[in-house]
């Protein structure tokens, strides 16, 4: 299967917010009305029940005009994901589509992923169980993995009427992105393709109209080495040692029992 990616050309976005509603509609997420804070942006940032939001950044251009920069802010689905590396329960994993998904059954709501995501994407949602006890689960965009499995595009992409959001063959999309970048350079001299190599690329690639920092994105995100060591080496080793210990204990128990058994046959002692 060819690699597919979601591509966001922010210069085509007209800020209609259909992607936000489509996401809520498909994923059955509750509305989260927020107070007016002086900006037309509907939500301050992503939350556990708002998996994508259009950010509206207004800035003054070189010739004194105002310019409004829209960005469909959502999970980047990093090739090397901060959240996945931070998760102590292995609840976060990559699918064959390159999407990073949270397994709600495994998630214990510790929030390590929330603290580690450099993009501020993943968040904890609070639920109440039948006994009235509160519990938390990490929630974020899953690139509509359920739809991808059925051969459909993500809900946000289907709703987009300006083709700002595209879900298509990676090579094709990236080649078109380069062409588009060359085309818009005159109007947006700082335009760039945001697909950070420090995190082994992302499954949601952006064509930004200005520097990443203008949109509040890290210039060159990178998963800390300590985190990689912890997740990929220390944790499996720890689990292995725990497994080895368990097996040693059980093995010892078995051999003891066997040895005991030998004596018991004749002696008729109590089994214990």
């Amino acid at each position, binding site marked *: 299967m060819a690699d597919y990616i979601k591509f966001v050309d922010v210069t085509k976005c007209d800020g*209609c*917010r*259909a992607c*936000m*509603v*489509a996401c809520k*509609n*498909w994923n*059955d997420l509750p509305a989260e009305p927020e107070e007016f804070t002086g900006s037309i942006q509907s939500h301050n940032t992503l939350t556990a029940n708002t998996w994508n939001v259009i950010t509206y950044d207004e800035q003054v251009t070189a010739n004194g005009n105002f310019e409004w920069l829209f960005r469909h802010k959502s999970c980047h689905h990093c090739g090397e994901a901060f959240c996945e590396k931070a998760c102590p329960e*292995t*609840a*976060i*994993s990559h*699918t*064959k589509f390159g999407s990073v*998904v*949270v*397994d*709600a*059954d*495994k998630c214990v709501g510790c929030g390590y992923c929330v603290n580690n995501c450099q993009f501020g994407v993943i968040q904890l949602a609070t639920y109440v169980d039948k006994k009235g006890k509160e519990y938390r689960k990490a929630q974020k965009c*899953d690139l509509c*993995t*359920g*739809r991808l*499995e*059925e051969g459909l595009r993500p*809900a946000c992409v*289907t*709703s*987009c*009427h300006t083709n700002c959001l595209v879900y298509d063959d990676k090579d094709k999309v990236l080649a078109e992105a380069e062409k588009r970048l060359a085309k818009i350079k005159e109007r947006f001299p700082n335009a760039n393709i945001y697909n950070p190599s420090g995190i082994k690329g992302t499954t949601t690639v952006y064509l930004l109209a200005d520097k990443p920092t203008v949109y509040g994105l890290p210039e060159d995100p990178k998963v800390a080495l300590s985190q990689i060591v912890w997740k990929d080496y220390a944790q*499996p080793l720890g*689990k*292995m040692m*725990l*497994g080895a210990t*368990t*097996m040693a204990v*059980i*093995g010892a*128990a*078995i051999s003891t*029992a*066997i040895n005991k*058994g030998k004596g018991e046959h004749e002696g008729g002692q109590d089994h214990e």
Partner: protein
Amino acid sequence: MDFTRRQFLKLSGAVAATIAVVELGFDDKKARAKSKDFKIAELKPTSTICPYCSVGCGILVYSKDNDVIYSEGDPDHPINEGTLCSKGTTVRQVYTSEKRITKPMYRAPGSNKWKEVDWDWALDKVAQNIKETRDRTFVHKENGVIVNRTDAIAYLGGAALDNEECHLLHKLFRAGLGLTYIEHQARI
């Protein structure tokens, strides 16, 4: 409970093996998060037209029993080709919203409360009021010219009306009742 030595060994071996697999996490890397049930798998979409603006986008509505499960732009519709705006995307809530009004509501003159009424009563009331108002305010002649109009009633149309509906409404309200204030929602 009596175990033979063989049984005991078998059991212990099985337990150890299970624990080994679980604890060592052999399948950790391959473990895939269970994706949610595909909610529209068994459902047949019904096509409809967006009720909001005059563009008239096509929408597919996925319903189950007495509930709307999902709605999205109709990819086969020539106008929107599967896309929708933020308002059209919310069309599911026209049906599912708790705020939806399902009965005609009446607020009497001077009252600050709405009350539920029957359709028959509401339609009669509208007809009576139109008749009474028109009769009271009808102008036959003005400055020697026959005008046959009333300025006391206004009509407000919607963007989803098509040409033929607009034609019929004009016939009824302008030619039939003599209204001059005929407006359209999109112009206000």
